[in-house]
């Protein structure tokens, strides 16, 4: 029994240094969710805080990674995080189904003419050219209910294909689409940067359609914060968004820094990133990280029309100009 007691004692003792060190109590902490791709601004804040004015000086950030925007929306609704990456459609669903109250404060990735657009690719040799050709096949999407998932459904429906009955959808993250396509397990899958560049470099992949065919310009992702936090602690959010703007500008002004930090976070080698990142072969980024409310409104209108969003969304309801990066 003595041995048991001492073992228990030792166990508790051993535990104490294991406990993660709490953030210094003197600085307010913001909980921020992130995902991949195209979040160089946030990754710079995460990995190079010394470059920026506010972070670790007037406030701290606790970072949480998620797989796509729907889980981030869940976490926002659950008050598990304060700010995070959103896509127009996840945001609208959170508002409609989760009674979410939040603001759209910063821009991350956008698509417009002359820049990269997410596309569905297939193998060069395959006969697939249209939605009809995908009938009976297995097709990949990234996170179901996420930012790009509904574009696929929309495109399939336009082509006269019922996504629920005519084909099989599987959820595969962007990085693995290429391997699964080449292994013959899927007939088509979505490509985003940097994986599109990597796949193109190896060759043998052909584009079937890209999202900008459905809508352009188009907002992929933006930074959103809970309304209660933004209204309750405006100074904290203002400081964060000031750094966000500075980081966006830094990424554009110093693409090599953006590439380095992206390489650290995604573990993709620099050489691959160097071929496209922050160029016109990449997503479009607003020069100061300011959201394009007009394109967000267009996305909402499209999906309200098709029924994927149940309610009418109005972009004006989710703006907070005094916290949003302003054009210089």
């Amino acid at each position, binding site marked *: *029994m003595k*041995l*048991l007691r001492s*073992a*228990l004692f030792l*166990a*508790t003792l*051993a*535990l104490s240094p*294991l*406990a*993660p060190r709490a953030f210094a109590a003197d600085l307010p902490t913001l*909980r921020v*969710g992130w995902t*991949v791709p195209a979040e160089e601004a946030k990754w710079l804040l995460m990995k190079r805080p010394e470059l920026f004015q506010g972070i670790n000086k007037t406030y701290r950030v*606790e*970072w*949480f*990674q*998620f*797989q796509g925007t729907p*889980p981030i929306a*869940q*976490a926002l*609704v*659950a*008050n*598990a*995080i304060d700010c995070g990456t959103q896509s127009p459609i996840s945001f609208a669903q959170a508002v409609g189904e989760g009674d979410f109250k939040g603001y759209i404060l910063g821009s991350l990735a956008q698509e417009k003419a002359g820049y990269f657009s997410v596309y569905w690719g297939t193998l060069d040799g395959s006969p697939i050219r249209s939605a009809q050709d995908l009938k009976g096949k297995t097709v990949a999407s990234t996170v179901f209910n996420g930012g790009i998932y509904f574009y696929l459904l929309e495109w399939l429906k336009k082509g006269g294909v019922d996504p629920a009955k005519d084909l099989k959808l599987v959820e595969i*993250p962007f*990085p*693995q689409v*290429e*391997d699964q396509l080449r*292994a013959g397990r899927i007939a088509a899958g979505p490509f985003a940067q940097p*994986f599109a560049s990597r796949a193109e470099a190896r060759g043998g992949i052909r584009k079937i359609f890209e999202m900008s065919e459905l809508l352009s310009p188009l907002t992929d992702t933006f930074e959103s914060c809970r309304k209660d936090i933004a209204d309750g602690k405006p100074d904290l959010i203002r400081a964060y968004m000031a750094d966000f703007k500075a980081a966006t500008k830094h990424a554009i002004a110093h693409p090599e820094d953006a590439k380095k930090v992206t390489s650290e976070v*995604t*573990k*993709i080698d620099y050489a691959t990133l160097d071929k496209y990142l922050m160029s016109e072969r990449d997503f479009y980024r607003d020069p100061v990280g300011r959201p394009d409310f007009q394109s967000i409104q267009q996305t909402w209108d499209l999906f309200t029309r098709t029924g994927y969003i149940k309610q009418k969304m109005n972009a004006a309801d989710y703006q907070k100009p005094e916290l949003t990066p302003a054009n210089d």
Partner: protein
Amino acid sequence: MIRFGPLIVLAALLALWQAAGMAMRVETLPTPLAVLPELWALFASGEIWGDLRASLYRLAAGFVLALATGVPLGILCGRSAAVRGFVSPLLALFYPVPKAALIPILMLWLGAGDLSKITIIYLSVTLPIVYHGQQGAAAVEEKLVWSARAMGTGRAGVLLRIILPASLPELLLGVRVAIVIGLIVMISSEMIVRQNGLGYDIFNAMDMAQYRLTYAVIVVVAVLGFVLDATFERLRRRLTFWAPERQDQLPTGA
């Protein structure tokens, strides 16, 4: 021979993996020799320690809570029909529930941080501890209790000085099962709600198509599982050397 058994088996498994990797020649199945440098880099750069620490912290915190509540509850269940009547149906109800599947729901209640993960580990590992504690306490030879009662031991004293040590062999088997279950839930929860930890590492590396890294972290998890189990097994043997040896209990769990 018995002593080196695990090493020989390990070598055989590695050889099998190497052969499979060499035969398949695909990026998604690197050979152990190709994974080795990645593993080395993980430790050399110190990158793995933070995640290992985060994972172990959650596991240990869930475990300490489970032991603190599950052991008394299990023993009371074994000794009191009233407590058993209350707890047993609840155990039966929760037994087939996939605990890790509750993570998305728990996250809504408790946030995305450690708390929801510790809670889910706690819920999962408490079950076998309570169950085996009950089995152990119920099976205690009644005459041991009588002997102690005749010597003037009170009811609390009997629970603490007779029932607890007498149920220890069975109880510790429950803990051993719980360790395996705890590892599974730890990995699953870190993978479903990602922040850090070994589960995060594995699935993140995979999602980023970093296959060698994926395998390297899996190796770390495998070694961790083996070391935890083997260490506990030594402790278990030391604590219950006085009891008859049981051969049939090796860890499994979900």
